[in-house]
């Protein structure tokens, strides 16, 4: 009892104090998880848009190599696009930064920083995150990292241009933009580490009474496992970044082999380093990172499906066990990105085996989500449309990954457009569709208003069609042997001549996809002020966040909630309403 009165007393005292907070403390340096979540989401969406813009530039070069880009070419200046023609160096900058920005500045901040921060405390009935000030620090570290990455475009030599993978020795001898990339990464990694600690402690310690782990929404589980991936996989990349900074700035040779010749001259370094060391440390993070990219989206899709089928998730426990197993396995598959580096057959077989095994939990989760649809009363709302589309898109993404995990097939497919097609299927119509579903689903909780359904469906159908138009051809081009990261899209290679037209198809797909984001952007801002107003639970959902007002006040719940049942008690036999919220007491 003492705790509640303490909480209430301090809550009241704090609200009185809170009323005094100026603009800066309340909005800019807020420690409220909802404000921070919204900052993460908006910043992440802006970076996604920017990264998409970089890609649209690249797609012109790929579709029409050697042709001047009208208007925009002139705007970008003679240093990057003399006469409107893209320099290969600039193409490489665009490629490296597109990947970096989408993964580290766009998707993860939105999926984890945005959705995780906003929804997780609400879904577990907590007043905020365990460490609100660390939460704020984590956002600002991300922001600074993002600024450093953006600023790198303007340094002499331009931004990083050695791929988002920054392989040595190219990255070590590259221009100063690469140093900025490394420093930016240190800020981003710090942000993720602080955030992951917060998420794990919050989930374990701040669950409402009655909310045991087996009553947690799948979304919370997905953020929980994701946080462990971030916590334990990012530090090695931070270590690697330190080593690469040492190579670049202190002239060490961690990644530089002896006798390296650059532009006809032997490099004046001590040598004795190993480029593969960089690859190992990089992929030790980057493989779990791809699960960081997908798991939150799976969590969102699970919530939306349960809610819009009006029945419990099928196989919830299997899904959770799969999630945990997947998280663990993700740490021991990384060298499947390195099959072509000359490792011995024993180690290759080891990584091939773990990679094949890791596909199992993914299949379990996907199958459970699909089976969850069976017998449901499906409401084809916009979030549900995105959630439904996620299923086959992630299916294609996952299945196309299998040949890459088999060493024999990977010989043919490694570093081709097939790889690009594979991972974009998972992240673009996969994760990003999951994130869109989440935006349409939780927008009313954050704002008290609904997004417009008509604009939402327009956004959905256009996006669904054109995502496939962009990425299916890449699978075909890759199978034909067209390498990735080619400045001219393969135009100078004889084996690519038969498939070059697909570059044009993909490019028009990308530009069309951009057009269909306009209804979404308009909808997002317009609905904040003019959207249909709703009460606290417009979707008739069961999880705890819908017990809070829309939008929730500081401290979230008027009275601290308790959980009395599982998270997906929809269509319970004998109950007249088709949903039994977690927070409502069980009637005797």
């Amino acid at each position, binding site marked *: 009892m003492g705790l509640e009165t303490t909480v209430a007393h301090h809550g009241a005292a704090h609200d009185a104090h809170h009323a005094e907070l100026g603009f800066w403390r309340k909005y800019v340096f807020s420690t409220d998880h909802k404000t921070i979540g919204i900052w993460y989401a908006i910043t992440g969406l802006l970076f996604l848009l920017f990264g998409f813009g970089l890609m649209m530039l690249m797609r012109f070069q790929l579709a029409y190599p050697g042709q001047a880009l009208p208007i925009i070419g002139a705007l970008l200046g003679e240093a990057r696009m003399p006469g409107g023609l893209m320099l290969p160096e600039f193409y490489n900058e665009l490629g490296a930064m597109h990947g970096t920005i989408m993964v580290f500045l766009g998707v993860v901040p939105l999926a984890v920083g945005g959705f995780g921060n906003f929804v997780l405390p609400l879904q577990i009935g907590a007043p905020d995150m365990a460490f609100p000030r660390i939460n704020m620090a984590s956002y600002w570290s991300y922001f600074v990292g993002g600024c450093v990455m953006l600023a790198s475009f303007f340094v002499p030599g331009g931004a990083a241009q050695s791929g988002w993978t920054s392989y040595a020795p190219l990255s070590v001898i590259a221009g100063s933009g690469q140093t900025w990339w490394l420093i930016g990464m240190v800020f981003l990694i710090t942000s993720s580490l602080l955030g992951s600690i917060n998420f794990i402690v919050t989930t374990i310690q701040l669950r409402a009474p009655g909310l045991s782990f087996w009553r947690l929404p799948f979304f919370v589980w997905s953020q929980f496992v994701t946080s462990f991936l971030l916590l*334990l996989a990012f530090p090695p990349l931070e270590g690697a970044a330190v080593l690469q900074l040492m190579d670049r700035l202190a002239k060490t040779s961690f990644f530089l082999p002896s006798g390296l010749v650059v532009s006809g001259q032997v490099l004046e370094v001590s040598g004795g380093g190993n480029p593969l060391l960089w690859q*190992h440390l990089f992929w030790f993070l980057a493989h779990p990172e791809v699960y960081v990219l997908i798991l939150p989206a799976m969590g969102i899709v699970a919530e939306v499906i349960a809610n819009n089928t009006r029945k419990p998730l099928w196989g919830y426990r299997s899904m959770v066990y799969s999630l945990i197993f997947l998280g663990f396995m993700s740490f021991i598959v990384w*060298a499947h990105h390195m099959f072509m580096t000359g490792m011995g057959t024993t180690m290759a077989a080891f990584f091939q085996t773990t990679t094949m095994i890791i596909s199992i939990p993914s299949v379990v989760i996907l199958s459970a989500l699909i089976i969850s649809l069976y017998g449901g009363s499906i409401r084809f709302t916009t979030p549900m449309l995105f959630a439904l589309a996620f299923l086959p898109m992630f299916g294609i993404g996952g299945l196309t990954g299998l040949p890459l995990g088999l060493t024999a097939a990977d010989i043919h497919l490694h570093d081709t457009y097939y790889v690009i097609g594979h991972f974009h299927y998972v992240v673009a119509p996969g994760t990003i569709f999951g994130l869109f579903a989440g935006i349409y689903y939780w927008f009313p909780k954050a704002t008290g208003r609904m997004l417009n359904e008509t604009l939402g469906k327009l956004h959905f159908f256009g996006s669904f069609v054109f995502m496939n138009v962009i990425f299916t051809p890449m699978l075909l081009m890759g199978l034909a042997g067209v390498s990735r990261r080619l400045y001219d899209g393969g135009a100078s290679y004889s084996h690519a001549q038969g498939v070059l037209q697909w570059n044009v198809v993909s490019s028009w797909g990308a530009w069309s996809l951009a057009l269909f984001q306009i209804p979404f952007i308009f909808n997002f801002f317009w609905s904040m002020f003019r959207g249909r107003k709703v009460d606290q639970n417009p979707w008739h959902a069961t999880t705890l966040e819908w017990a809070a007002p829309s939008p929730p006040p500081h401290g979230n719940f008027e009275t601290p909630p308790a959980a009395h049942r599982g998270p997906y008690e929809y269509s319970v036999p004998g109950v007249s309403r088709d949903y039994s919220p977690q927070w409502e007491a069980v009637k005797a």
Partner: protein
Amino acid sequence: MSASHDPDGHADVDRHVRAAYFVFGSLLVLTGFTVAVYFLHLPTRAAIALALLIATVKGSLVAAWFMHLVSERKLIYWMLGLTAVLFLPLLLLPTLTVLDRVVLR
């Protein structure tokens, strides 16, 4: 006060302090061993094994007694266990992938 210590704080803390002094003494002795082993000029592999063994014992003492791991919660043990399990592949697998190409001295 954390619940890993009993409500009668003072007696418990005195035990901790006595243990800390004992660990301190052990650590100094083991540090002496560490340096002494060096002067044995053992072959490389044996030297590595012995040095790591002694370091592990020292580290375990620090972890167990200075960091209170002997009386910590199960949850912390699980987290650290997970970390240890993931630490090993990180430490060893990169080198294993190049073992067939290097000459082991």
